[in-house]
Structures are given as C-alpha cells and as structure tokens.
C-alpha cells in the first residue's frame, strides 16, 4: 500500500509515487561508502517513464547498481569498457537505459537510469558508490546530493561518521535557507557521529499547499579529527595500512608566488570580474615575508614587475590597482607566459634573492587553450619541464569547459603541483580564493614516508614536494602481519631551516576492537582506501607515461584493479542485466576528464625506503606492548633500608 500509511495525504496528481527515497552513507576513517535507494510505483493507468537520477561526486567510484522492475531484478557487474559495450550491444534492454553524464555546472556527475514502467509496476533502484574524504582548509566535507524529484512518502537519510582518531568537531551547515531548520538530528560521541535527516511529507513540501518537493540540494556534514601526534595516525587492518598526516603548530614557510593570469578575450566579462575580485583578496592575504609578482598574458605577455617583490602594503596596493585596470582581449599564449614566470623565479633564485628556506609556487589561471605561439600542448609541457627548476611547484586552475583540463593536469602533475577545474559562474571568485587558501600556508617541504620493513608492500605515492596547512597527506599500502607484529613509519621533512624526522607506531589491536563494536563501520575501509588512492594515482601517472609501452602497462594495472575491486573507473563500465542475461544496460564513465577529480591536493611520487639522514637515530621498534599511559603512580612506604634525609 502506498497511501494513507503515514497519515499524510499525497495528491493523486502525482501518478508516479515515490514510495521511499533512502540514503545511507558511512565514512570510516575518511573512506565513504554511500547507498542511494529509490522505490517508485506507477499508479497511472498508462505506462510511465520512471527515472532514477542521482548526482554523485566526480571522482567517486560506482561499485554497484541494482534495479528491480516488477519482480525482475537487474544487477550490475564491472567489465572492461570495450567488452562491456559489446555485451550491451548484444542484448539491449527494451524500455530501459542507464548512463553516467558529467555535469558542467558542478563538481558532480549524474547517474541516470530510465525505465518504462507498466501500470501498477513497482520499481526499485539502488546505487552504491565510494570516495575518499580529503581534508581542505582544516576540515572534511561529506556532501550528499538529495534529488528525489518529487515528494517521497518516506525520505530517510542516515550518515554515520566513524573516525578512530576522535572527532574534534562536527556540524551540519544549513544549505536550504532555513527550510529544514531543526530537521537534521545529530548525535555525536567521541569517535562516532550519526546525522539523520528524515523530513515528513509536509516538511518536504516547498510550501504548505505545494506539491513540489523542497528537497533538492545537498546535505553537508563538516568535521575534523583530533591529532595527537605530529607524525599522524597509522591504522592497520585486514592486511592494509593507511597513514593520515596533517601536522599542526608550525609556522608557515615564506613563499615566492607568481600569479600567471589569462587575460585573453574569452576572459572578458564575469570571468575577469570574478578573477580580479579573487586576486584582490588573495593579495591582501599574502604575508610580509612572502614575495610575489603578477604575469598577465593574452597573445602578449606582460609583467606587473619584472622581479619578485616583497608583499608590503604598498606593493600589494599597487598590484591590485594594476589588476583592476586589465582589459581582457586577444589570443592566448600560454607557453610564453609560463616561460616568463619560470624565468622570473629562476633568475631570482640564481641571484640569491630568494630566502633559501622558502617555497616557490606558480599559479596559472586560464580559461582556454593556446591560440598564439606554441600551440602543441606536449611541446608546452616539455618547454616548462625543461626550464622549471625543481624547487618550483606549478598549480593550474582551468576556468570553464573550453580549457583542456587534461593538459593542465599533466602540466601541473609533472611539476610538483595539481590542477583544479574552476566553474565559470558567479561563484568563480570564491572557488579561486578557496583554491589559493589551500596552498597559501606551506608548512613542510620534501615530505617522505618510509615504512622500513619487508612486511610492507604496494605503498601508494609516498614522497611529496610540499605539505600545506589545513590539508592532509594520505599514504596507504599492504601489510603482512605474518612478517612483523608492528608497523612503524618514519617521516622525513624540512621546514624552513629545520630538518624533521617523525616516527609513529600503529596501535595494532585497538582498531579491530573499535570497529567490531559498530555495525555501521566498514571493515573493508583500508582496502577500499588503498584501492581508491592507487587507481587514481595510476590514472594520473598514465597521462604522464613517457612511452606507449609504459602507458599500456599502467593501463593493464588499472584495469586489473578496477575489476578486482569492482569499481567503475575510466577503464571499466557497469553492465546491468537481468537474471536471464537477455536484457542489458550499460553505465560507463563519460569521455572527458579521464583522470579527473580525485580531490587530492597532492601529486607525489613513489620512492623506495630510503636511508635516514646521518644525524638521525631511530628508536628501536618495541617488541612488547607499551605500558598503559595514565596508570596511577604507585606510592609506597620506603623500605626500612632506604635512608631518606630531610626534605626528601
């Protein structure tokens, strides 16, 4: 029965009834697995198209999908893309489609399934996906896009956050202009939290006599964890380890930063206005021991100053005035712009004008492909690589969809940075500022993670040029407990004129005990996080592979892992078929942005365990458990033979 159960009337106008819309999402140590389930009934006397259209974060991996249409179940399986397409073409399902469509508006993509349902038919859709939570500006944001499309008789969203490190804070910001005030219920403990969002039908309505739903947006959970040790948290479980590194309480390293801004004709209008607005705030945020300059380019390249200057108030005011006066026009000469920026930094470095303990960054902002000068993207990439000194990191921000984002990503990853897509809308300024804030506070350089034991294999990227405050570096790998009882990590890094070596040991039994007590905790989180990191890093490495043979090898590994871990990646597709196998649908990743959006701020490299600096004496790995902290001090009466003197 679909009517009258909750005592709330739903109009007969809505001939397709959304009986229930359920979202269950669990984050276990930064690894999120989400299930979206929708149950629909066609109450119309005519066949109706029933749509299941959900937004999932770009970079998430779909791991499962199933659909039941009037008792016939379709289940998903992961196949190599070409093979999957071939299977689909053999037995295309009638009246049913599925697909992944990349959204141009947001950092999301749509998974859409459409079924032609007969009168009275009941349809259930269920989608599972997984993603890693990346720390940005001091917190993690877990976003669930709720888009039921219509009033749901039962709308239930449950989010469990399970963080063994302990929750420092957790809140659910209002994203509905107050419409759902008081509806989300949060229960928070030391290491776990539950957020429940279950609006009644009346609460879902846009207005008291509206038939449209107001549920069309995001439920966001924002949180951060406690950090006891500078060396981070090392968790071992089920044959895998994950290492979360986000040290605090360090002064920022001075930075030398060059802003390289596209002012070609296509930037005219909202894009330039938003860029200027962002740049003014960014320049105000520079610290007094930072140095900076601005390069703006179209078919020509101009520099505000030919050299880097200190970020004094006068210089910043002058730079802001310069940027405000820029009128975008003309073509795009990215090659010359980047080479000029690199020249300025290299020259300053060679002349000893840079603080030897500083960090050098180039931030490129562009909205299109090169149209003047060197047009071949691979040549531009080569020119940059050949000229850039290896202490400079290049970050690229691509505004809009006319820019070749893959090129920017390759360019940045090849030069110790990352690329990020900026959506060209009224929000551009905020996005630019948010990105800058993520790299505005370098705390460490040359961070390397060592796990010096043969029990550790298949470690993800473990060497990073920079660590920026407010972010987190995650390293994962496989651990064989038969070869060692303990897992130790030694991290080396530099901060200004200081060298650091940090050690940490994994608490081997605590996690198993902790996870076993919570039915919502995902016991597979270590494996999933390792697979997610590895696949995304391999996808990026594939773009940078120097030869076709190297690329093929990486492709093979990605494919194997995608199939083994049952996830849709750019190399696999989900074939959704009925039990008989004579009706199939296909969901595969959209063609563009092959290596998009893992969300990580860092692109590092893999290095073998290296020898420690000569001045270091690592502590031996303890063979016995450490004594309990906080045990009461035993006070005893001194034995008679102990001679105590006055005031002892």
């Amino acid at each position: 029965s679909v009517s009258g159960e909750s005592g709330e009337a739903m109009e007969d106008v809505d001939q397709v009834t959304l009986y229930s819309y359920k979202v269950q999402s669990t984050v276990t140590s930064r690894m999120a697995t989400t299930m979206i389930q929708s149950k629909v009934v066609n109450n119309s006397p005519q066949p109706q198209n029933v749509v299941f259209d959900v937004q999932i974060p770009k970079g998430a991996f779909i791991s499962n999908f199933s659909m039941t249409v009037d008792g016939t179940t379709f289940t998903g399986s992961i196949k190599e893309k070409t093979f999957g397409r071939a299977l689909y073409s053999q037995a295309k399902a009638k009246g049913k489609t599925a697909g992944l469509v990349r959204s141009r508006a947001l950092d999301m993509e749509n998974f859409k399934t459409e079924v032609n349902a007969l009168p009275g038919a009941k349809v259930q859709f269920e989608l599972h996906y997984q993603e890693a939570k990346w720390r940005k500006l001091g917190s993690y944001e877990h976003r669930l896009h709720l888009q039921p499309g219509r009033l749901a008789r039962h709308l239930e969203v449950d989010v469990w956050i399970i963080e063994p490190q302990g929750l420092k804070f957790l809140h659910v910001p209002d994203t509905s202009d107050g419409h759902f005030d008081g509806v989300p219920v949060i229960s928070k403990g030391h290491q776990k939290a539950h957020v429940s969002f279950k609006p009644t039908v009346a609460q879902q309505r846009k207005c008291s006599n509206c038939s449209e739903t107001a549920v069309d947006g995001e439920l966001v959970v924002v949180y951060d964890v406690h950090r006891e040790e500078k060396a981070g948290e090392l968790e071992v479980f089920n044959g895998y380890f994950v290492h979360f590194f986000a040290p605090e309480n360090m002064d920022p390293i001075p930075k030398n930063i060059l802003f390289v801004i596209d002012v070609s004709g296509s930037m005219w209008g909202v894009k330039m206005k938003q860029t200027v607005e962002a740049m003014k705030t960014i320049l105000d945020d520079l610290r007094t021991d930072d140095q900076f300059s601005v390069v703006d380019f179209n078919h020509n390249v101009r520099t505000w100053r030919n050299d880097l200057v200190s970020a004094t108030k006068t210089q910043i005011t002058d730079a802001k005035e310069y940027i405000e006066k820029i009128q975008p026009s003309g073509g795009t000469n990215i090659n010359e712009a980047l080479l000029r920026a690199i020249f300025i930094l290299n020259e300053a470095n060679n002349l000893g004008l840079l603080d030897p303990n500083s960090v050098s960054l180039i931030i490129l902002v562009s909205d299109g492909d090169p149209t003047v000068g060197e047009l071949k993207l691979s040549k531009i990439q080569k020119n940059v690589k050949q000229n850039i000194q290896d202490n400079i990191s290049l970050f690229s921000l691509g505004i809009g969809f006319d820019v070749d984002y893959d090129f920017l990503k390759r360019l940045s990853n090849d030069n110790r940075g990352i690329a990020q897509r900026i959506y060209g809308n009224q929000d551009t300024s905020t996005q630019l500022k948010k990105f800058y804030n993520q790299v505005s506070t370098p705390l460490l350089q040359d961070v390397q993670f060592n796990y010096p034991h043969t029990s550790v294999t298949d470690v993800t990227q473990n060497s990073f040029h920079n660590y920026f405050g407010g972010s987190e570096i995650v390293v994962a790998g496989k651990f064989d407990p038969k070869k060692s009882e303990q897992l130790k990590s030694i991290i080396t890094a530099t901060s200004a004129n200081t060298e650091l070596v940090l050690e940490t040991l994994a608490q081997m039994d605590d996690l198993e005990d902790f996870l076993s007590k919570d039915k919502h905790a995902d016991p597979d989180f270590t494996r999933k996080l390792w697979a997610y990191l590895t696949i995304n890093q391999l996808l990026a490495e594939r773009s940078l592979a120097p030869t076709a043979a190297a690329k093929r090898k990486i492709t093979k590994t990605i494919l194997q892992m995608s199939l083994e871990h049952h996830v849709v990646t750019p190399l696999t597709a989900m074939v959704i078929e009925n039990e008989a196998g004579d009706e199939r649908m296909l969901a595969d990743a959209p063609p563009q942005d092959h290596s998009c959006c893992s969300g990580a701020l860092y692109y590092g490299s893999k290095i073998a365990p290296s020898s420690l600096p000569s001045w270091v004496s690592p502590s031996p790995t303890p063979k016995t458990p450490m004594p309990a902290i906080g045990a009461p001090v035993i006070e005893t009466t001194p034995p008679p033979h102990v001679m105590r003197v006055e005031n002892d």
Partner: protein
Amino acid sequence: PHFIIYLPKSQENICFNIDSEPGKILNLVSDPESGILVNGQLVGAKKPKNEKLSTYFGKLGFYFQHEDMKIEISTETITMSRDSRTSILSWSDTAQVLSQRVLVSVKREKTVTITLDKEMSFSVLLHRVWKKHPTNVDFLGIYIPPTNKFSTNAHGLIGQFMHEPKIRIFNERPGKDPEKPEASMEVKGQNLVVTRGLQKDYRTDTVLGTDVPCWFVHNSGKGFIDGHYKNYFVPQLYSFLKWP
C-alpha cells in the same frame, strides 16, 4: 627539586634539595661565554601534604645564544623558537628536529634530548602521573653529563660544578639517626656536616628510578653551592644569572 652532583675526580655524589615556591625560576646553567642558558620554573603540587607543599620543575627553558634558539619544555609541549619562527611538538610525538647545530630528539612520553653540535647534550625526563591523583602533578627532570664543555665562568646551581670543586669527605660516623651515617665534607674552605642518603636516577625507570647513594648537604646546599639558593632566582625563563 632534588639535585645530584656527580664529581668525577672525587668519584662522589653530592646531593641537596632546593625547597622554594611555585612559580620561582631557578638558574641551573648560566654560561654567557658559551652562550648557553638553562633555567627551571617550579610548579607546586595540587595541595599540601602533611602541611607541606611539594615543588617540582614544571618547565625548563634552554637558550643557545649563538644559534639564537630557545627551547621551552613543559609537561605538555616542547616549543622551539628561532628568529621569529616557532615549532611546537608534544610529548605524544616521537621526533627529531635538527636546526643548524641544535638537535632536539623527543621520545614519546619519555625524554627530550638536546644535543648541541654533537658535543654537548641535555636530557629532560617527563614524569607523568595519574591525572586524578589528589596531590601529585606531572613534572620534569634534567640530566646534564659532566663531559659537557662549558666555559670556566659557567655558573648556576648545576653549571658551577662543571669545573669540579675539590672536596674531602672525612670522619664518617654514625649520625643522630643510627641508620643515617654522617661525615664531614671540606669544600670551598668550609667544613660541612653531610648525611649519607639515597637519591634517585630516573633515567632507567621514570617511576621507581635507580638508587644513587650520595652525601646530602642540608639547608638547600648551603656551603656547597656558591652563595644562597635565592641568589639563583631569575626573573624570566630566558634570563642569564646576574651574580651579586
């Protein structure tokens, strides 16, 4: 605080206590020539026991003038400052930090060792007590090896003994308490009555320690230390000693 001074040439341990008030800062090593300073600030127990409030070192400050480096060690954090930059480690960390000639090595919940140019070292031990203990508080201990090379003008409650005074222990005899033998100690032109006792070296075990037999100098080391113990109060954690 309990002081144990090992005199290598005499092969004797001489010990004394400084019984003062919470908040006072005692100068332990003051060597302007070498540019080395160590001060310790006292912290009191939660409440008196037997009408007496125990005091301990709650904070130690190290200043290496030639490196312009300050290191403050409390029972919670280890703060390193150089130029205008500050880094903070906690006792939960196991880390080694090298800044030019100064190496700071932290062993989680146990020790901090400061090494200067591989020639001089200082060890600080953390004594962590049960948080809910009615009187006891966390405190620190400091250990300075006699091999550290200070200048001839080094001073402070510990620094003054880097250049070993000559002592002569004689006339050992039973004390007023038969279990506490006494003796006479000739030092700095005076004869002091000293009592045989046991102090503790906690480097082997921070809870029980190892017994260190020593000759105890009463009255806050009077006669053994230069001047009076109050001469060693300094106003700030990084103040050099101004000897009257």
